[in-house]
């Protein structure tokens, strides 16, 4: 029986707490303790980005993040992107451009693109392509994903739908 550690943090705008195994990943805790299944376990090695979450404003592979280190942090998962005004601009752009096939990589892609656009809403194609270097899609290639990211950036800059 592995040691459990009591942690408290802010999850999608809510104060939460949990006792988590000391060797658990943030991904396991988000999925199993908080029923947030948006972030996915695929490679478990930080190679694919399907588990991407945003911690204190920085995107992270939640599969490689010690759950105990969530303590005191502000965590955003794909479930937290949904706001009063409906879908986040990145989510809406994925819907509009059809940037989803099997969907397994989508939550990670959306979070990573949101992170890139938060840091630079004017990010162009080259910058966005580099931003998702750590996100693997095995279905479609990346053309529609980048199309969606560019559309989302335009929307976030107030340019309306392209």
């Amino acid at each position, binding site marked *: 029986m592995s040691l459990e550690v009591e942690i408290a943090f802010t999850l999608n705008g809510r104060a939460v707490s949990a006792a988590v195994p000391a060797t658990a990943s943030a991904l396991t805790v988000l999925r199993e303790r908080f029923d947030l299944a948006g972030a996915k376990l695929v490679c478990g*090695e*930080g190679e694919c980005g399907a588990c991407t979450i945003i911690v204190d404003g920085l995107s*992270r*592979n939640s599969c*490689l993040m*010690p759950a105990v*280190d969530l303590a005191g942090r502000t965590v955003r998962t794909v479930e937290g992107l949904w706001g009063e005004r409906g879908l986040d601009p990145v989510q809406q752009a994925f819907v509009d451009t059809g940037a989803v096939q099997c969907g397994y990589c989508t939550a990670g892609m959306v979070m990573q693109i949101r992170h890139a656009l938060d840091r630079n809403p004017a990010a162009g194609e080259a910058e966005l392509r*580099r931003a998702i270097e750590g*996100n693997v899609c095995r279905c479609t290639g990346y053309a529609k994903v980048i199309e969606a990211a560019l559309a989302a950036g335009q929307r976030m800059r107030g340019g309306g739908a392209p």
Partner: protein
Amino acid sequence: MPLAQELKPLEIDAYVDAVSLDAAVRALADGAGTPVAGGTDLWIQKDLGKRAYGRRLVNIRRVAALGGIAEEGGRIRIGALATMTEILESPLLLRAAPVLPATADRFASVQIRNAATVGGNIANASPAADMVLPLLCLDAEVELARWHENRIDRRRLPLAAFFAGPGKTRALPGELITAVSFDRPAAGSFGAFQKSGPRPALEIARVALCIAGRREGRRLTSVRIAAGAVAPTPIRCPRTEAEIEGVALDDAAIARALESLGREIAPIDDVRGSAWYRRHLAAAFLEEELGRVARS
């Protein structure tokens, strides 16, 4: 080196969330602690039994004294907790030692750069550790601290002397990397980092090479060359450096340098590439960099 302990998955029976250097080194003092910061190496390795882990997990991520990138008295100090993203974006490093941000730019992915620390890249002691190469070229020292006789005992060690083998360092039991530091490079210095993998991102280097120095026409002075994934540890190549130092670079001089490099590296065959291919890559990288100077 014989294995002192059986290698087992990480098992934890105590957790310390250290908030000061004092608390961190005390928690590690008996050698039974496993420090964690970014987790990008440890959380992959923990289930594989790659190391002899201590059963007390010590989270050093919030130790403010271990962070920051700053210059004092002509010496640049990068705290052990500085992430690859912080190195990539540091205005000081972009100005004073741009080879470090250039290397960070080739390091893994955004998500991993946001987590991985320079202290972790050094402590993990991979023969293919990217960030170690430019630091070796900057003659960096690694700063260490441990709790000893009721006080914090600090020492500095040349980074080049810190590695003992794959995954092995010369840190004492309970000793923590606190920073890496180096003299600010003279104005007009240059540095270049080259790395091979099938794609730009998320590659563990098949071969990486870093060269630094000062350019004076077709000559290089204060030449530093470091290579990764070509020996049991990241290495400097002093004989190749000497071969190049101050010499007007032409085809013959470059050929001599490549021959010397071939004698200084000792790559192996593994899943990422053959020894033959690694030799080819290392030579190609050096040839490209020296050719750039020769043609200038």
